[in-house]
Structure formats: C-alpha cells, structure tokens
C-alpha cells in the first residue's frame, strides 16, 4: 500500500481518506514515505477512488488543501516565540543607525549656523548636544533635533522590551551575556533553532563576517570575537586572554542556546558552573 494525500492505494484497491482540509493536512504531515521505493501518485487513481469527478476537480481540491496547509505553516512559523524578538532587535539596531546618521548630519548643519562652536574640551555627550541644537535652532533644524530625541526615547523603551523578551525566549543565553547581546546573536543566526544548531566556533565569530572571510581568503589573522565582544566580560578582559574568554564564552553559549531551544527554561546548575568557568578564564592572566 502506498499512502497519498487523498487515501491509500495498492493491490488494485483504493481506500479513500475522509476528512476536511485540516485533517488531510495532519495526515499529509504524518506520512513520511521511503523515497528510494516511492512511486508518485497518479491522479486517475484518485478519480477511481471516487472523490473527484475529473482532473480539473482533482487539481482544484488539491490546490485548496495546499493553500490551507501553507497558511497554517506560515501561522505556525510566525507564532514561534523568537519570531517577534527577531524583528524587535533588528528594528533596535536600525534605529541606532538612524540616530547616529541624523545626529552627525544635524551637527554639521548646526556648525554652519554657529561658526564659533566647537566640541573640543567640552565633553558634551551626544544627547546633550542634540538638546542644545533643539533649543537654540529655529525651523527645520530644531525639529530634526527634536525628532532625534523622540527616536532616542523610543530606542530606550524598545531596548528594555528586547531585553525582557530575550530573558523569556532564551533564558540561559541571556543569563550568560545579557538580553540585548543574546537577542543580537539570535538575529544574526536567523532564529533560535538556527542558533542552537551553530557550533561554538561559529557563535564566537558571529557578526565578524568581513574579518572571517578575509581570514579564509587571505592570510590575515582570524577574528577572535564578533557580537560577543559587546559583552563586558569579553571587552573588559585583559588583551592577552580576551580571545580565550571569547572562546570559552562561545562554548558555553552553544550549550545555553541548545538548552533554550530544547528545554526552554533556566538551568541553574548549568549556569552556575558556566559563569564560574567564564569568570575564571577572565581572571587568569599570563605571567
């Protein structure tokens, strides 16, 4: 007997499957034929089964089932917990780019209006500068500065949400490197499933694509860290052990991502040991 979407066929017999689109889809998903000995279906058999009048009727019904199936798969994909986090963190990074670009441009414009202005020896943080520009400028420039401030506010709110969502979606990874950086790793990998499948060595250099391919193609040194550099224990580590810390951290992250995907809850016994190991690597300095 060979099973097809409309029923089972074999030995000159045909057993029709009765059900609506959803039960048919469940059936299709449950059948996994052995492709070596697989014989593709013949639509004439389906008609002989009695469920379809002719070829046009067969194709129309098949299309209807397939459209419902695809819609269901799309819904399932998008309802995964990490799907929204992915968009959130990408939006966050995009807002950062926009804020930087706009502030640079606005500052240039402000300089033209105030030729005597200089930022040297002032230690003016960027957001204060934007505030001054808003207060001291008339017209469009003042409004642009105002928009930058608004965007910065949105960014703060979004960053908190990303962090909170990351704690929920990937508790173990977030515990090791913080929600924001964890979410960025997720965004670069393309999803929690994909991240959990990455080897530690790939996680270590995730986000350092240019350097990595330069290394593979030429003789330039390989990158020691990608996104994980943003984590304090990597960028605060003494230079000589930084690569080592990155490697150990990436190793633990690979395990954490798998725990997050398959278990989905915090694993304290793993986290305690991992944190201890990472901290120990950071302290150890070459004499």
């Amino acid at each position: 007997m060979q099973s097809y979407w409309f029923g089972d066929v074999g030995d000159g017999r045909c057993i029709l499957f009765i059900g609506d689109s959803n039960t048919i889809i469940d059936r299709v998903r449950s059948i996994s034929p052995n492709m070596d000995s697989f014989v593709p279906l013949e639509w004439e058999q389906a008609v002989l089964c009695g469920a379809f009048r002719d070829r046009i009727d067969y194709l129309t019904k098949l299309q209807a089932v397939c459209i419902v199936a695809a819609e269901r798969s799309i819904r399932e994909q998008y309802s995964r917990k990490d799907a929204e986090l992915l968009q959130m963190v990408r939006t966050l990074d995009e807002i950062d780019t926009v804020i930087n670009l706009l502030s640079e441009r606005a500052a240039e414009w402000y300089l033209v209006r105030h030729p005597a202005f200089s930022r040297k020896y002032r230690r003016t943080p960027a957001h204060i500068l934007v505030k001054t520009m808003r207060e001291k400028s008339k017209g469009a420039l003042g409004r642009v500065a105002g928009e930058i401030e608004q965007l910065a506010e949105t960014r703060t709110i979004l960053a908190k949400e990303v962090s909170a969502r990351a704690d929920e979606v990937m508790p173990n990874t977030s515990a090791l490197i913080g929600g924001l950086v964890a979410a960025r790793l997720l965004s670069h990998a393309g999803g929690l499933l994909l991240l959990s499948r990455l080897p530690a060595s790939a996680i270590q250099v995730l986000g350092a694509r240019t350097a990595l391919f330069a290394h593979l193609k030429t003789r330039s040194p390989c990158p020691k860290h990608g996104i994980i550099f943003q984590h304090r224990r990597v960028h605060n580590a003494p230079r000589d052990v930084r690569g080592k810390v990155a490697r150990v951290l990436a190793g633990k992250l690979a395990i954490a991502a798998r725990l997050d995907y398959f278990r989905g809850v915090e694993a304290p016994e793993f986290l305690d040991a991992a944190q201890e190991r990472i901290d120990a690597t950071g302290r150890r300095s070459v004499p």
Partner: protein
Amino acid sequence: MIWIGDVLVSQGEGGVYNERILGGARVWDPHRSKLSALYHVGTGIELTPGMRVLYLGAANGTTVSHVADYVEVVYAVEFAPRPMRDLLEVSRRRRNIIPIMADAARPEQYATLVEAVDLLYQDVAQPEQANIALRNCSFLKTGGLLVLMLKTRSVDVRKEPSEVFQDTLDALTSAGFIVQESVWLAPYHHDHAAIVCTKPVV
C-alpha cells in the same frame, strides 16, 4: 515559447508583479527571472501546454507565474514563510499553481501531494544543489527534463564558480543524467549557471 520581436512573453493574467504588458502578453524579464535569462543566452526548453512541472525554490512566484502561463500545472515548493505569502497570493489567482511549503531537500515532506512530472525545475539557494535535484528525481518521468539553476555562490563562496559548475555537472552525469545544455547566465545573472539535462530511460 512566445517571442514578440526579441522580447520573451507569456500569455496570462497580468499585474502579478507590475510586469510590462506588450501586445496583451506579459513580458518575461531576463534580469528578474533566471529561466527567462536561459532563453536569452541559450536554447532552454520548450514549455508545452500539457506539461506538469515540479518547481523547487518558488520564492515570490514571479517565475512560477510565467511558467504557469505555459504549462498545465506547477507544483511550487518554497520553504521560507515570507515569500510564501506572495506565492499564495499568486496561487489564489491561478488555478494551476499548487503551493507547497516544505524543504526541497526533504521530498518525503511533500511526496504524497506531487504526481509524476515532465519537468523538474530547481532554483534553490542551498549548498547541496546537485543532491537536492537527485533526491527529487523520483518525481521525474523517465525521459523527463531537469533544469537546474546553479547558484555557485551558495554552494561554496571560497571555490571558483567554474569549479563548482564542473563538480555539479560531474555529479549529475555520474547519476546517469544526460546533459543537453549548460550555460552561464551572464550578463543577466552573475555566478549563476543553468544546466539542462534529461533523465535516462533505464
């Protein structure tokens, strides 16, 4: 294939992706579609009204819609949810496109839906492109055609495209396929090649 002067067109309901309409027919742009590029740089294959096609890597349904204008039915397999939404929109307007959301590398996921086909068309961005074609060839009738759009950069960015091209040709011939035509799709698509072959009668 229908040509108006040196413009390739297909007959069908227009407006799928704001394509140009010429003399009532839909212009099939070689810059947007690799199959159209194949007709421009090489011979390609004749699409006939009775053909059944299994299309792997259907994406947004741009090329699929043109193929569907020519043939009887297209089984369109696509993996990613985002382009799938566009493909569904195209399918709802065309009775002969069967959209299937599945991984082309795992034919057992959609084996129960697809009948034997005359043409297997593959345009997937995955490393194992020759293997995917071979895994799907149980759907292909003997003497049927395989059109493989080889994205050499998806196979291995470090290898020379020509090397990847040769490896793929070797893989197909050693599996018994008879290569009819193999061309690069430049200047329309860079580092992309088209391989047309037939499944031998065993």
